[in-house]
């Protein structure tokens, strides 16, 4: 209890100053640059044209930056056949070329883990650096890991600038212009699927994929986080992601979860399916299955 006769803790003057300061702060912050989905259409168009001009000049070849929106009635999902994968790493390098990842310092969005058949899916004994003359190696199976496009994504919750979010077609995207490189999302991701550009990405001349998407494979600056987007520039145009097409054993399946006739629904309805680290309740849209 306050002793009687003392002035209240917060005086009228303090309260008024605080309220005024809060209002001023709010107004000042709101005046800043705006997000991808908030900017007026003309400004966004101009921004994309500016990006295209900048990239074209930088790489000496015409580059397009699309902002294709999600298709209505589509939710993407992915399935990978563990019993088929032979660990040849074709997907890793197919992804690098399609998505303009830095060659040096090296950034790989897909990491193929070699695992012991005896131990099963066990991350403590997984080896991403396996060297072999030929794969599959005796007694091993392979588990490629990339962004699991979680429905309950921990990475988007920790981002202090709102630079990463889930789109309506289920793709978790990053706006590289809003990423401040704090790497909270990398700490939050239980799959190690996010990667940081420690240096300015280097892409050999002529190797740039010039068909890019604003939220996907456009060239990234140094100091931002990037990850798999289900090849947003391809999948939103109706095409299969690059890793699906490059897989020599056809272990990778992709499609619309909301379409009952899709390959992905067939897998979920007919095969033994698992998700990684189910106990974390991240609810991935990247499924692993046994095709045999």
């Amino acid at each position, binding site marked *: 209890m306050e002793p009687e006769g003392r002035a209240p803790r917060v005086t009228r003057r303090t309260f008024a100053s605080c309220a005024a300061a809060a209002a001023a702060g709010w107004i000042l912050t709101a005046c800043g640059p705006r997000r991808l989905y908030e900017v007026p259409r003309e400004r966004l168009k101009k921004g994309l044209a500016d990006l295209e001009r900048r990239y074209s000049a930088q790489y000496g070849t015409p580059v397009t930056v699309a902002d294709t929106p999600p298709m209505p009635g589509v939710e993407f999902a992915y399935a990978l056949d563990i019993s088929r994968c032979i660990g040849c790493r074709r997907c890793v390098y197919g992804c690098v070329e399609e998505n303009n990842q830095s060659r040096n310092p090296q950034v790989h969005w897909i990491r193929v883990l070699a695992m012991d058949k005896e131990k099963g899916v066990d991350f403590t004994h997984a080896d991403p650096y396996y060297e072999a003359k030929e794969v599959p190696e005796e007694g091993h199976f392979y588990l490629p890991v990339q962004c699991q496009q979680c429905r309950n994504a921990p990475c988007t919750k920790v981002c202090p600038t709102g630079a990463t979010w889930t789109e309506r077609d289920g793709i978790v995207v990053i706006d590289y212009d809003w990423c401040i490189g704090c790497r909270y999302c990398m700490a939050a991701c239980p799959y190690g699927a996010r990667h940081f550009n420690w240096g300015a990405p280097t892409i050999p001349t002529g190797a740039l994929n010039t068909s890019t998407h604003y939220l996907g494979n456009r060239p990234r600056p140094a100091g931002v986080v990037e990850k798999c987007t289900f090849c947003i520039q391809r999948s939103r145009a*109706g095409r299969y992601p690059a890793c699906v097409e490059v897989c020599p054993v056809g272990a990778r399946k992709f499609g619309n979860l909301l379409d009952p006739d899709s390959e992905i629904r067939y897998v979920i309805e007919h095969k033994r399916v698992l998700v990684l680290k189910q106990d974390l309740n991240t609810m991935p849209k990247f499924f692993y299955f046994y095709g045999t």
Partner: protein
Amino acid sequence: MMRRATVLALALVTPAAGLLVYTPWAETRSPGAGDARPGAQATAPPKVPPAAGPAQERVEVPPPPFSDGIFPCSGCHADLPVNPTRREFTDMHADIAFTHDAQHRWCLDCHDAADRDWLHLASGERVSFEESYRLCGQCHGEKLRDWQAGVHGRRTGDWNGHKRYLLCAHCHNPHQPRFRPLEPKPAPAPPTRPGA
């Protein structure tokens, strides 16, 4: 006085921090908001997954993978007598090391004796090399169903439109069906410490 300054500073910082931490654009974007962007205007939205229509209509299969100059088989076999005996090949087809359940099978179980440009099913029905999956599916029915659903084997093209399949024989040599091992691409560079 001290406390007042602190409160004032907090008041200045809080709304700004609040704006940064709370990201209304992530949750409250109205369903149509994305469609109002220029992309929706500039590029026609791609086809919504086809509601119906037999899968075959949208599927393209490349021609069967014959060895060079081997087809048509009737080029040689039309004039040769039919020899169904199990034997070692010496002058022709010496490259075939038959390991596909060889104990129970020999050439004419799949290849048609009357016309070598065709295959035949167990029922005797002739099938072309383009439809060889029907022959494979006699034993590997489960795989055939998965393949038709697009789950076994590689598919390329559009996930919601025109797809390209491969025949069984494109990946599995019918005479030695086990998938051949491949040389893996280089391992990722292990992380290094700066200056190390």
